[in-house]
């Protein structure tokens, strides 16, 4: 009997605290699979966000640093500039990356920091009980937009991949999703590429993962993943926004 699928080695034995059906577990696994496949656990240092994934430092077996809310790209910059031979990744939610941390995100991207950013976009602030995020959709009901996000008051959502691809510097930007097997497998490839780019010293790689929050969306996991398909992906289209590797190959 050969193993076809098992838990990756670079996830610890600690049980994940996430809600049933929360895609964080899938995305953590994709990161760990990339670390395993590339054989980099011994030189990887991850940066945990503030958000549901705040305790990510307990789930990855590489060295980990807990960052202040939004500041992970700055912490990662310090780590990478101090240890250029190490592999540095951040794992951030939509509040962390696109609200309080927007400046750090943009500037790490424009400096082309040779780091890997995993951006989990579930259009809501999960940890604090379901408040509006910068990526919450127009009309989306949240605790702080109880009548639906009113674009006249709260503006429009931020499309991070589109925005960052206006910068000259970043090396690789792709948006993926994990709402079905096909998308998970594509996401897995993208995440691994984002790490491989760093190993090869190519520069800034960011993978936006369109995710879900069943609990705060008030849906079952199944309905939540369907909502990703029906509502999120049309607003946040999947695909490659920047891949300098493709241009280099020509």
């Amino acid at each position, binding site marked *: 009997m050969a193993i076809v699928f098992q838990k990756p080695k670079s996830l610890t034995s600690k049980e994940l605290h996430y809600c049933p059906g929360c895609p964080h577990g899938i995305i953590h696994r994709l990161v760990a699979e990339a670390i395993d496949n590339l054989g980099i656990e011994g030189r990887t240092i991850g940066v945990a966000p503030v958000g549901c994934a705040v305790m990510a430092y307990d789930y990855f077996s590489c*060295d980990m640093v807990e960052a*202040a809310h939004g*500041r992970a790209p700055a912490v990662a910059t310090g780590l990478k500039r101090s240890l250029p031979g190490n592999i540095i990744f951040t794992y951030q939610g939509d509040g962390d990356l696109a609200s309080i941390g927007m400046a750090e995100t943009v500037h790490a991207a424009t400096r082309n920091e040779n780091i890997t950013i995993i951006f989990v976009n579930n259009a809501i602030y999960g940890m604090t009980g379901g408040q509006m995020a910068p990526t919450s959709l127009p009309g989306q009901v949240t605790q702080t937009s109880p009548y639906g996000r009113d674009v006249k008051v709260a503006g429009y959502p931020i499309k991070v991949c589109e925005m960052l691809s206006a910068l000259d510097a970043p090396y690789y930007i792709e948006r993926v999703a994990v709402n079905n097997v096909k998308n998970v497998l594509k996401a897995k490839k993208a995440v691994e590429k984002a790490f491989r780019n760093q190993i090869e010293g190519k520069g800034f790689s960011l993978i936006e993962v369109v995710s879900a929050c069943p609990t705060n969306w008030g849906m079952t996991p199944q309905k939540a993943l369907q909502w990703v398909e029906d509502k999120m992906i049309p607003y946040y289209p999947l695909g490659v926004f920047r891949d300098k590797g493709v241009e280099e190959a020509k």
Partner: protein
Amino acid sequence: MPEKVLMKGNEAIAEAALRAGCKHYFGYPITPQTELTAYMAKKLPKMEGGVFLQAESEISAINMVYGVASTGKRVMTSSSSPGISLKQEGISYIAGADLPAVIVNVQRGGPGLGGIQPSQSDYFQATKGGGHGDYHLIVLTPSSVQEMADLTHLAFDLADKYRCPAMLLADGTMGQMMEPVALPEEHLGGIEKPWAVTGTEMKREHNIINSLYLSPEVLEKTNFERYQRYAQIEENEVRYENYMMDDAEYCIVAFGIAARVAKNAITLMRKEGLKVGLIRPITVWPFPKKAIRAAADKVKGFVSVELSMGQMIEDVKLAEECLRPVVLCNRAGGMIPGVDQIVSVTKDLVSCVEGGAR
């Protein structure tokens, strides 16, 4: 006798940091400390392993410091008052994660955008918290360009020794003035840091740099353990200068530029037969409580000379335990107390205490 170089205070800090083995600097321009940032911008890229980055904000800069500090390497940021306010969350995280780092505050007038002239009005911020939670910074207060260099060098050593962030609390005058400096020798200050994140190399359990402990019992324990280290710092690392205190009947307490002016005022008052001395804190945390308490047994009163609305005076009063009167001699907004003002305030105190006998 080491050779002396004429240097600006801000640049002396930078050079001393480099000689202390600090190869990582993150900063943002702000008056009156920008020369420090510019000096690092020039020097670090030419040094092997040197990292200079002008961060997008003071907030980013302190978080970059947190990142480097996590790897166990020496790292520094500098700013002035409003920028130091921005760094407070990051400083609390650095303290809460027990990381060594050096933060330089070249104080300017405040509050708010304030002014660009010198002040000492961030004393509370530096010594009483600034950031949230229970923690302390080791706070060093230079009074000359020589001390700007020497205390920077010391700051790195103390930060490493106690796994505690250290702050160089200078004022705009110190930053801008030029004096001859004997620069410290290069030293590498290597102590083992097994807690640092450097990559496990699959040879050890992973290290986690963190300040989050959801269990209150555990968080309480980390607080108490940290305060045991602070108790050691208070026991071992108090630094101050006694100036003409042997026969002093009145004691001025002042640091930074205020101490320089106070010394001139003392010279004047001594000529008139008034026996005044100065206790000059070189660390304001840990504060020289014992020295002031001892002085309170001998002198008849204290004058706290400050470039603020009166912040250090509270620590003077606490230290001397209500034994003697303590008065404030102050300017604010970027003004510096002059010799005449210090003399006048001291003489008023003398009149109060001795009933106008002199």
